[in-house]
């Protein structure tokens, strides 16, 4: 299953998936796809303490999904899609290509099985 294999790409991606495996963090990320936000703006829709939000942010940062920057007294958060697009774009495409090739290899081996059996059976 392709999605499960995605988890094995790299430790970075494992962290990214860990970060995404929480509805609050996905909600925060969706908010950030609209544009940068301060921590308090990010916290507003959630029924959570600010420190809980900050904890979630740390997980998102560790997963490489969000970048935060403190300007004066305000910490601004923005999405960091580079890590995602890298893994998603080329690596996923590459895996799919090889999966398709191996589907055809399987088909080829099945189609040529009869002809090969005699040869294989040589002692």
């Amino acid at each position, binding site marked *: 299953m392709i999605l499960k294999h995605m988890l*094995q790409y790299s430790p970075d991606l494992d962290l*990214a998936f860990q970060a995404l495996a929480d509805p609050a963090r996905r909600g925060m990320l969706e908010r950030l796809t609209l544009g940068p936000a301060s921590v308090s703006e990010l916290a507003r829709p959630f029924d959570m303490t600010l420190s809980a939000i900050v904890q979630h942010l740390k997980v998102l940062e560790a997963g490489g999904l969000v970048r935060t920057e403190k300007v004066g007294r305000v910490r601004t958060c923005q999405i960091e*899609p580079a890590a995602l697009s890298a893994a998603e774009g*080329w690596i996923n495409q590459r895996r799919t290509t090889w999966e398709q090739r*191996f589907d*055809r290899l399987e088909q080829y*081996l099945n189609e*040529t099985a009869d002809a090969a059996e005699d040869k294989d059976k040589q002692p």
Partner: protein
Amino acid sequence: MTERSVTHATFCIERTLSASPARVFKAFAEQKAKDAWFTGAPHWVRTERSMDFRVGGRETSSVGEPGGVQHRFDATYYDIVPSERIVFTYAMHLDETLMSVSITTIELAAVGGKTRLKFTEQGAFLLDPADAPQREQGTHFLMDAVEAFLASEAAEA
């Protein structure tokens, strides 16, 4: 200044094939057999092909839609153990743009009359700013993927 990025990643594919390791190996070693499965999309055409299957030998293949982007595979073989292992490196170009450079290991093991194939690719995947529009798409894709993944996990639980 142009921003460039590279992602290092490893992925692994495992398959159990209904054939002996010798037959699976042959499907990698002989061009005629390999051409039966090592192809692009069904309507793509091959514009270049060479295969020199020995240690130090090269293999090339260019495929793509007629008149479209050429996907060029350029490999060098480093280790060949018949019916057991093949190690090669390959570069992937889309037209003139280098997309990735990888080390690939194919391991074959007999398992009860079948063959366990383990494919491992370790690569440097190169990404240029020209790919930027894909980023947003990529994010949405990943969101969908995560949802599907979590749903499948929930279904299994």
